[in-house]
């Protein structure tokens, strides 16, 4: 069983077919994914409101689908309105920031204000990170809002081994390992650094094949208990606390 905390719905600007709902279901079945949390690819790379609208319709198609609203702090008021509009929707359980595509630093004043506005909700933030400077920005944000949960998408990407050290002191930051590079020791070192209960399973599906991260878990020298924690138990505790 897997809870995949990093999935996308929509077309990507690369040589690949669009994954429609049946194909997505087929993949979730193949890899035994019981819950998958999606954000809109269109919302990330282009128009967040249009992408969120499409995502909301998509989420209704399967009980396993849950969602993050994509926000773009360049459009601060619109982002606030977007959360107000959908925050009662039970399928929406988080917010996605992508500092690479929006060109807005993670600890930017507008992004910080958005987090502040909704810090009394249970929304969890999935934040794309690539490089130590983004990990440091995320650490700053997490320090300011210790009761808000953040997921460091990609565990900081190409410098993940430095990034786990940077976020280690912040218990409200989780890490998830997906990346184009399936580093053999990424899970082991992440667990050993930030602690087992802060490592989640995220694949970046439909951009990246879930087999990438499953292979990293299965071939990463983890015990059965560690695998179960990463695959679903930690996500259950983070997203669905009793």
């Amino acid at each position, binding site marked *: 069983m897997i809870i995949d905390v990093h999935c996308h719905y929509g077309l990507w600007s690369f040589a690949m077919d669009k994954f429609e709902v049946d194909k997505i279901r087929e993949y979730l079945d193949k890899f035994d994914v019981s819950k998958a949390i999606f954000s809109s690819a269109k919302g990330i790379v282009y128009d967040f409101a249009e992408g969120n609208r499409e995502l909301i319709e998509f989420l209704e198609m399967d009980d396993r689908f849950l969602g993050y609203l994509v926000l773009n702090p360049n459009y601060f008021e619109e982002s606030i309105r977007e959360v107000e509009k959908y925050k009662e929707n039970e399928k929406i359980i988080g917010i996605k920031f992508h500092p690479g595509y929006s060109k807005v630093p993670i600890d930017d004043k507008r992004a910080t204000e958005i987090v502040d506005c909704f810090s009394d909700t249970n929304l969890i933030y999935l934040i794309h990170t690539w490089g130590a400077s983004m990990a440091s920005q995320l650490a700053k944000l997490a320090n300011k809002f210790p009761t808000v949960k953040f997921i460091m998408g990609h565990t900081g990407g190409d410098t993940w081994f430095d990034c786990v050290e940077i976020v280690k002191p912040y218990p409200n930051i989780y890490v998830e390992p997906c990346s184009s590079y399936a580093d053999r020791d990424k899970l082991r070192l992440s667990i050993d650094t930030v602690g087992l209960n802060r490592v989640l399973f995220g694949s970046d599906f439909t951009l*990246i*094949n879930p087999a990438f991260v499953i*292979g990293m878990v299965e071939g990463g020298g983890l015990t059965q208990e560690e695998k179960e924690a990463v695959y679903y138990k930690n996500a259950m505790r983070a997203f669905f606390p009793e």
Partner: protein
Amino acid sequence: MKILDVSTVFGFYPYRKLDASLQTLREIIENYDAKALALSLKGVFYDAGEGNEETLNLLRTDKNIYPMATYDPRAYPRNIRLIKELDSKVFLAVAFFPHVQGWVVDFAPFRLALEVVGDDLPVIVHAGGYGEITKVARLGAEIENPIIISGIGYSNMSEAIAVVQKTENIYIETHLLNSPDALEFLKKYIGTDRIIFGSGTPLLSFETAYQVVAKSSLSDNDKEKIFYKNWEELKGVRV
């Protein structure tokens, strides 16, 4: 199913603390009952001459892991003799690492190296950025060696398809084929005859590379081609 991995390394990894020892590589390859081509990282990070010598010394009699040579064109003309005289009875391929070593694939010393490498030796090029594969293919059109390009993922898949469609001796290595249905997508446009299995282990996860092929919806026949048959059918290859 038989597996031959054309993309493995061993030795000291300077970028961060990581066990990339030959012993670890051997254990991984043995766990999967696979065979592999490998080279010493000394040849990539330090000196091709010393690296190739180490590769040969350690793998000459290995039953599962076969030696692969490398050449660093930044050192040209030093060591060019090595590549001229590479014994294809001993080394099964020669691999180049422009991305790691910081040179571009239309670098004149690399072109010279390709000109002198024996016709019967497969060439593996680890290339990635937009335009690099296109340049490799242009060079490939001038030689007869099979050229296997490593470093193809979702971002440069379009370029890989375009060059394979245009250039007969270009092949795709699998370790970075990260998009879901990447193999099915490639099959639709270029077939499966020119896809060759590689993992990047022990730096990267062998299990990941394995699952990408094994869990694809390709037929067993296609999987066999990718795992080892396509390699065995390359011009000049002996296993």
